[in-house]
C-alpha cells in the first residue's frame, strides 16, 4: 500500500514536470501530450484514493530480497555501457561479463574458477564479434582498444 501511494505521488509530480515542458510548443505539438498528462493525473489520483479505500491487500513487499546484488548489478552494467566506447566491444564485454558472473556466484572463487569464467566469456564475445562484425558487417561499439 505504501509503495502504491508513493508511486501515485511520484506520477503526479512527474506529470506536472512534463506539463511545464509543453509551453512553447505549437498547438499540434502539445495537444496530445497534454491530453495524456491529464489522463495520468486523473489515474494517479484514482490510485491514491484506492490506497486509502482498501486495507492491506497482501501485496508483495516492494523491496526484493538480495537487493544489494540487484543494485550492484545495475551499477556494473551502467559502467559497462559507459566503457563500451572507451575499451571497445570485446575488452569491455569480457571484463564486465566476468565481473558479473563472479559477483552473482555463490562462494569465493579460486584462480582456476576465475580463469574458466574469463575463458567462457571470451569465447562468447569473440564468437559474436566475428559473426556480427566481420561476417555480417553489423556495426558494433568501437573504442580505443578492441
Amino acid at each position, binding site marked *: 500500500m505504501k509503495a502504491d501511494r508513493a508511486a501515485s505521488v511520484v506520477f503526479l509530480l512527474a506529470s506536472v514536470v512534463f506539463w511545464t515542458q509543453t509551453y512553447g*510548443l505549437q498547438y499540434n505539438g502539445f495537444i496530445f501530450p497534454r491530453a495524456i498528462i491529464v489522463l495520468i493525473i486523473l489515474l494517479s489520483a484514482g490510485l491514491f484514493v484506492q490506497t486509502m479505500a482498501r486495507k492491506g491487500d497482501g501485496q508483495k513487499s516492494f523491496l526484493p530480497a538480495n537487493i544489494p546484488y540487484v543494485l550492484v548489478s545495475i551499477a556494473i552494467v551502467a559502467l559497462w*555501457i559507459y566503457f563500451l566506447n572507451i575499451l571497445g566491444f570485446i575488452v569491455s564485454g569480457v571484463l564486465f561479463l566476468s565481473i558479473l*558472473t563472479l559477483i552473482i556466484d555463490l562462494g569465493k572463487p579460486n584462480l582456476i574458477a576465475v580463469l574458466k569464467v574469463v575463458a567462457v566469456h571470451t569465447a562468447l564475445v569473440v564468437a*559474436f564479434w566475428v559473426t556480427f562484425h566481420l561476417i555480417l558487417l553489423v*556495426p558494433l561499439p568501437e573504442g580505443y582498444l578492441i
Partner: protein
Amino acid sequence: MIEAVIKAFGHILTLKVLLMIIAGLFGGLISGALPGLTATMAVALLVPFTFSMDPTEGLIVLGAIYMACIYGGAFSAILVNTPGTPSSIGTTFDGYPMAKKGEGERAILVATYASVYGGIVGVIFLLFLSPPLANVALRFGPPEYFWMAVFGITIISSLASKNILKGFLGGAIGLLISTIGIAPIGGDVRFTAGFPQLQGGIELIVALIGFFCIPEVLTMITERDKTFHIAETKHEKGILVRTFVEVMKRQGNLLRSSIIGTIVGILPGAGGSVANLVAYNEAVRVSKTPEKFGTGVIDGIIATESSNNAVVGGGIIPLVTLGIPGAPPDAILYGVLLIHGLRPGPELFSMHSDIIFTFIMSLFVATIFMLPVGVISGRLLHRTVVRIPIRFLAPAIFFLTIIGSYSIRNNVTDVFIMLALGVLGYVLKRLEFHPGPITLGLILGPIGEMGFVQALLMGQMLPNKWMIFFNRPLSWVLIVLSLISLCWPLLIRQFAKGWKIKEM
C-alpha cells in the same frame, strides 16, 4: 492462375532454391530470437547480399528470413520473457509462465505450429484475395487510425484485469513516453531535456528490452540461490504429436487470430506488434476461462503467434497491389523491387507475374519448412538455455540486450536508455504494473497521435473540425468495437455475479 502457380513451384522446387530458403529460415530464426534484431533490420542487413542474385531469388531469401524472424521472436519471449521482435510481446504473457512451470518445450512447439498455421493463412489471403482487400486498406484515413489506436488501448482492460487502474495508468505512461522526440505534426522538439540524441525519441525495441527483459534478469539475480531460472522439461515421448493435436483442436482461435493478423497486416502503419495483442485480446474475450490467461495457457500463444505470422502475408497484399508497404519490413522489400526496376502495383501482376507468383509460393514453401526447422532449433535452444546456470545466463542476457539495443540505431545512448527503462520497468514490476499495457501505449502512441492531429487538420474543411471523428462509417465501426472491448470485462463480471446470485 493455376498454371502460374504450377510454374512457380517449378522454379522453387530445385535444390538451390530450397537450400536458400532453409538458409534464410535459419538466419531469420536467429535474428528473430535475438531481442534487438527486428525483422526489418534482418531484411535490411541482407539486402546487399542479394544484389548478386537475380531478383526472384533475392526476394525468396528475404521472404524466408522475414517469415522466420517473426516466428523466432517467440523463442526469447518464452525462454527469457523478452519479445525477440515486437510481434511477440503477447507471447511473453503465457509463454514465459509456461517455461517457468517446466512446459517450455510444449510452449515452443505450440508457437511453432501456430506460426506455421498463421503464415499459411496469410499467404492464402495474399494469393486469392489481394485486390479487394487492398482497397479496404485505402479506406483507412487518419480518423480511422486514431480510433484504431483507441481500440488498441481498450485492450488493456483485458490484459490488466487484476487491477484495471494500474493497467490504464501504465498504458498512459507508455503513451506519454512515446511523445518524447519530434512531434509528428509540426516538428516540435518535445521532452528531450536538451539532449539532441533524444530527438529520435524512445525506440520501441529499446523499451521492449528494457521493460520485459531487464526486470526478469534482475529477478533472476535476486533468486541466485537457485541455479537454473526455468524448470527443466522432462523429455516426454510423443510430445511432438500430442501438442500438434492439441493445437489443431483450437481451430476457432487459430483461424480467428490468423484473420486478425492478415487484416492488421494489410493496414499500412500497423504490423505484428499491434496484431498479436489484438488477437490475444480477442482470445481472452471469447474464452470460457479468461482468468487463466497470463498463467500459462496455450491459447494465449496460439493467438499471438498465428496472428503475427499472418501479418507477413497480409502486409505484402498492399505492397504488390498498390505499391504501399503494409508493415515495416515490406518497405525494404519495396526498395528491393524498385532497385531491380520492378515497380510494385498492377503491372507487377501483369508484366512480371512470374516473379510475383514465385515469390508468393516461396513464402508458402518457406512457412512449411519452418515446421521442421523450428521444431529442431526450438527444442535445441530450449534444452541449452535451461541448462545454463544463472551466473552465466544473467550476464549473457545483459550482453545480448546491449548488442540488441545498440544495433538498432548504432547509438550508445540507446543502450543507456534501455538500462534506464529497465530499472524503471523493474520498479514498476515490483509495484505490480504489468509491462504489457505500457508497451501497448508506446506502440499505439505515435499511431494515435498522428491520426488525431492529422484528422483535426482534415477537419479544417468542415464547419466543426471535431466532427471529422464522427462523420465516417468506418470510424463508427471502430468506435463500437472499442466500446465493446472496453466494457466487456466489466459486463462479464456483472453477468458472473448475476449467475451466482441466481444459483443461490
